[in-house]
């Protein structure tokens, strides 16, 4: 047993046209939680993919327990005791909890699956994680947070000595974060080496022992004890300059006519009696816990789902929106999806096509002809303005970093000249610099007269950005609060709205 569980040096990865990783280094000791930080595109994912055998490094060496290793496939890495929980879900929805946990190590008896043993082992790992889940439940019935914890349980069941967690807290609640952390502490005590990737610095300071920061594929700092750093120091390493999360400054209260109004709106998904309004040029924030029905309401508004009752008024007139096309073409309304990969963008197509998709019908000549040159001319300005980093407009979008993809998904609606823009989780999986940039952009867009509806589960973000806050809980609006931009005050009011609504329900 050496005092280094995993070491990687000179890790370099060259993709066509991009140097994703440039001689990066990292060391994991048994019994430590090691934070890997960096902006989007800094090379974190690439480094993780090298450690887990997904990518072969162009250059560089990996040691596990002091022994040099070469991973040809993710299986090699697993065999070497490296478990990983990726950002993407890797569960099989129709299989049970137990089957998913034991997927890589199905216990057998005389060539047949030993279900009793499988269940027993699964239960053990669930209890280890303090998870109160029925092992016989199909995974598709679980909440997002439960699935996340389940993936961790699975990684552990492989008896991993090195555990990689890529943004494990992105979609779970504060309480579940604490459950996860107390469990990580237990693993630490058992000598597991944990690599923790997160954008939430508070969590890093709470749980991590040492920090490695990547910037532009290089090490900005390597294996530094957390006690030697403070928040500003970490941010400085990440963005290469101090205080990058700049203050948004002051924004005058909006005094303009109402642009969008919802009167007693109910939907097929289960919203009932939703009432709210937004002024022209206003930034309206939507806060709520996961499952509060914010994205679903947005989808109904833009015609992707059915509104079953009530009225939607735009510019004071009743709007009939039966498809996304109606929303876009008749009412200049757009929706930036929270799920870039799933339904927000077409990653296999070019940057130009992804932005142009909303305006083809506008830029076409002679009843439907659009050339690449015409399209480039129309979209180039937006790519420049949003500082999208891409080698060319014809570049396949999937090759860009998450932050740049997010900029593209905003750009396509700016190009469409929307008057009402709904942005769902504008900065999920986006680095600090891009985050600050997007916040400013939201204000800029609102300043130009666009009504912006921002949906976010990030409370500091919503308090910083919104002019007014709509709080939702269980498919209903439970609060409509003017925003003082004082975080302590607003966070309290928001939680009161949510808790108050639940109390009311219980007493009723």
């Amino acid at each position, binding site marked *: 047993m050496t005092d280094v569980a995993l070491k990687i040096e000179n890790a370099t990865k060259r*993709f066509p046209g991009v140097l994703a990783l440039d001689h990066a280094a990292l060391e994991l000791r048994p019994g430590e939680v090691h934070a890997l930080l960096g902006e989007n595109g800094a090379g974190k994912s690439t480094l993780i993919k090298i450690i887990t055998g997904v990518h072969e490094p162009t250059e560089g060496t990996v040691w596990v327990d002091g022994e040099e290793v070469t991973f040809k496939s993710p299986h090699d890495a697993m065999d070497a005791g490296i478990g990983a929980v990726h950002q993407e879900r890797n569960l099989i929805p129709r299989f049970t909890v137990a089957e998913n946990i034991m997927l890589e190590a199905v216990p057998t008896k005389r060539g047949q699956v030993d279900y009793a043993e499988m269940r027993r082992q699964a239960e053990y790992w669930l209890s280890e994680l303090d998870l109160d889940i029925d092992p016989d439940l199909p995974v598709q019935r679980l909440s997002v947070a439960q699935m996340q914890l389940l993936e961790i349980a699975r990684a552990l069941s492989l008896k991993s000595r090195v555990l990689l967690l890529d943004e494990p807290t992105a979609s779970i609640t504060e309480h579940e974060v604490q459950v996860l952390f107390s469990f990580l502490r237990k693993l630490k005590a058992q000598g597991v080496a944990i690599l923790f990737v997160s954008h939430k610095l508070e969590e890093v300071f709470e749980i991590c022992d040492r920090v490695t920061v990547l910037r532009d594929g290089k090490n900005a700092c390597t294996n530094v004890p957390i006690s030697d750093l403070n928040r500003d120091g970490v941010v400085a390493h990440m963005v290469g300059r101090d205080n990058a999360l700049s203050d948004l400054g002051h924004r005058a209260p909006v005094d303009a006519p109402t642009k969008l109004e919802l009167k007693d709106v109910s939907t097929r998904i289960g919203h009932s009696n939703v009432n709210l309004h937004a002024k022209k040029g206003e930034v309206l924030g939507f806060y709520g816990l996961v499952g509060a029905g914010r994205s679903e309401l947005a989808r109904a508004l833009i015609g*992707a789902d059915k509104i079953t009752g009530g009225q939607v008024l735009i510019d004071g007139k009743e709007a009939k929106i039966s498809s996304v096309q109606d929303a876009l073409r008749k009412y200049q309304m757009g929706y930036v999806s929270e799920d870039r990969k799933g339904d927000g*963008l077409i990653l296999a197509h070019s940057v130009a*096509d992804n932005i142009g998709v909303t305006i*083809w019908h506008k830029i076409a000549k002679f009843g439907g002809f*659009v050339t690449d040159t015409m399209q480039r001319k129309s979209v180039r300005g937006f790519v420049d303005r949003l500082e999208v980093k891409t080698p060319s407009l014809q570049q396949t979008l999937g*090759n860009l970093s998450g932050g740049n993809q997010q900029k593209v998904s905003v750009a396509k609606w700016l190009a469409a000249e929307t008057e009402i823009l709904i942005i769902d989780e504008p900065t999920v999986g986006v680095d600090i610099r891009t985050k600050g940039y997007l916040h400013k952009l939201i204000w800029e867009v609102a300043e130009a007269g666009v009504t912006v509806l921002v949906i976010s589960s990030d409370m500091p973000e919503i308090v910083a950005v919104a002019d007014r806050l709509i709080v939702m809980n269980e498919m209903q609006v439970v609060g409509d609060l003017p925003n003082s931009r004082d975080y302590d005050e607003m966070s309290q009011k928001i939680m009161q709205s949510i808790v108050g609504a639940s109390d009311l329900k219980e007493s009723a």
Partner: protein
Amino acid sequence: MPPRPDAVNLNELLARIAKSAGLALIVGVLILIFVYGAQGFTSKFNLFNLTRNLSVAAVVGFGMMVVLALGHMNLALGSTALASVMIMGWVMKVAALPVPVAVGCGLAVGSLLGLLNGWLIVKTKLHSFIITLATASMFLGLVLIMFPGGPISDLPREFTGISKTRYFGWVSGMLLITLVAGVVLAVMYRFTTLGRQMLATGANPDAAELSGIPVSRAILLAHTLSGFLAALAGVMFTARQGSALLSTGEDWLLASFLAPLLGGTLLAGGYVSVVGAFLGAMLVGILQNGLVLIGVPDFWVEFVLGLTLLITVSLDRLRNVLAARRGN
């Protein structure tokens, strides 16, 4: 420092050309092999016959390509063609209407049947595989019920003449029809809103829908086009045979997938190559023709074509896996 964002990515352009160039090279090698190894391959009669078959096969391939663009399939291509030519034959021969009217009727029937496929897919939200498998049988059954008397032969010379024109003594005039169809399709995918909408729908239907693309309309039109192209191929085939045969289209299925997939069109949708589909049809046509000439039995030809399809899709899959591993 990244280059100017408007600079066309040379690598990508070269990769695109290289994709077709590789296939063209294989076709070239195959031609050389048969020129030297297969007696009678270069005879004017054989080449005329080859180009005639080829022109039909390429249109069949286009018919499948336009639905593959959506990530769909059209298993009813063959029976759509059959229904179209039987009705065309009836209009021509029994109703004795002018040839252009009859051909127009045939093409209209094909388009309508394609539209029906598209409509069923949009309404039921079922996979095109199962819908067109069902309609394929329905179309075939209906035709057999409607035409108990069998084939309609002795079609007017004015019509069959289409297939008899030749240039340089060996190039079938029907290739012109195929080339026009190919150019129209290439223009549609590269330069029109509609083509881009179809490809976006194929690459990611949910994202396309949320971007305000009329997804249902794109699906309807693509299937209508597929039906039209099936009918067109049927018309060309019938002109060649001189009769509207009940066997029209019965053996098209394999080649209809093989031509576009060989050419780089993605089975999953979102990318097509018209030139590739044409080259793919060439490969299939030449392979069939050459193998028969050197005396390979029919069964083996069939086997080789099946194997080619398997290798094509496997290679495509492998390329994707490798690309993912390189992180591309």
